[in-house]
């Protein structure tokens, strides 16, 4: 008889993890051999248990899934890690795959899809949830053949953008810093908006956060274990 595929779950959302574990228990081909509720203990368990598959939550309070993935793969390059995220973003997917994960699922997937992903990854393939691949293939960026929309901006436009999204400055302030007229700065602003298909500074900020051009603020963790 074929041995079941052993799985380690690393996720700090205990309630949903417990339910997921119960569902996986119905599948005799899969055996959950461990659970960790933060990245650090996940790294230790991965070393102790050497599971076939690691299901990894991306957004965890203490150590996020991305750095935990890198740390596990540095110790055990053969580990098969499937990332599981509540909020899909394209840069996140790219970073996770670049870090060496073999699969990517969102929490919108069904239990059946988790099983499919585990089977595919065990067969040596990569698995990215169809909901995301479809969206990726149809996104305007993919159609333009670039995964960074900011690459179409000129050097000056990028500079102006930097002052808007990183320094939170208004046109007048930017004009003073760059020793240009406010009118010129606004011409740049509207050209940036046009090129990126957005309408205002805030939409520019959201796009910049999304692509890691500006760092989104991180809320300090409040409820400690």
């Amino acid at each position, binding site marked *: 008889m074929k041995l079941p595929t052993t799985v380690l779950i690393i996720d700090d959302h205990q309630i949903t993890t417990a339910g997921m574990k119960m569902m996986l228990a119905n599948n005799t081909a899969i055996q959950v051999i461990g659970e960790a509720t933060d990245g650090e203990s996940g790294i230790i368990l991965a070393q102790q248990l050497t599971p076939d598959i690691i299901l990894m939550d991306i*957004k965890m309070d203490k150590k*996020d899934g991305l750095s935990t993935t890198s740390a596990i793969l540095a110790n055990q390059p053969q580990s098969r890690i499937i990332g599981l995220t509540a909020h899909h973003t394209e840069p996140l997917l790219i970073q996770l795959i670049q870090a060496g994960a073999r699969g990517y699922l969102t929490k919108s997937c069904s239990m059946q899809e988790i099983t499919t992903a585990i089977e595919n990854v065990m067969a040596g393939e990569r698995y990215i949830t169809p909901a995301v691949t479809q969206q990726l293939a149809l996104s305007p960026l993919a159609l333009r053949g670039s995964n960074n929309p900011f690459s179409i901006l000129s050097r000056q436009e990028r500079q102006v953008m930097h002052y808007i999204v990183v320094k939170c400055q208004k046109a007048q302030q930017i004009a003073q810093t760059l020793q240009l007229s406010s009118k010129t700065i606004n011409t740049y602003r509207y050209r940036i908006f046009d090129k990126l298909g957005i309408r205002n500074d805030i939409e520019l900020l959201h796009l910049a956060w999304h692509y890691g051009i500006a760092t989104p603020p991180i809320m300090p963790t409040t409820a400690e274990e």
Partner: protein
Amino acid sequence: MTTMTKIAIISHQTLLRQSVKTLLHNPPEMTVIAEISTDQSAIRELETLQPDVTILLNDSTYIKWFQRLQQIMRIVPNTRLLILAAQHETVFPSRLLKAGAAGYLTQHHSPEELMNAIRAVTAGKQYLSPKVASQVMLDNLDKDPANHPFSSLSDRELEIAYHLANGGSTEEIAKIVYLSPSTINCYRYRLLKRLKLENTTALAYLAAKHHLIDLPCIPPGQEDSL
């Protein structure tokens, strides 16, 4: 014989719905009568189902919670609404309880805590997990407004701050909240002054930091060097 507690689970994320449903198989006095998505038509099903407890699982911002909560309360005013959040929050649990939620806990708790919460709200009590409760209490004692800048705002101000921080134009926001554009501009001016901010971009940063708006999940240190 004890009566069965009829439970409905609502989330736009299938895996989370299924997980919670599976977890609630065990307690004999609980039965999950529906797990439904957040579509309008799905939510309207609640009227026929009349669950005793409705578990609202979401991942999103306070405003979305608030709107969903009001919508559910309109459809099934008698259901006990339990919020099962994915993130730790500090300012908003008490606001959601005031707005009509019967209980609030996060997915970081143990399954037993969820059962306790369901039993408490079924018994007509309000429930706040001990961890969240102590945080709420500490925040109330903390008089430094810098630590929770949004807590002094009214619901209307909070809603407008949310739309501004999401890039809504004056005209758009005016339409959404049924106010005139000039009133929205007044709100903007007052909000920035009260929060001591220079402009709406700074407001967006603050709103993201305090979970008022959705944030892309990107770890720090990825900035482009310009």
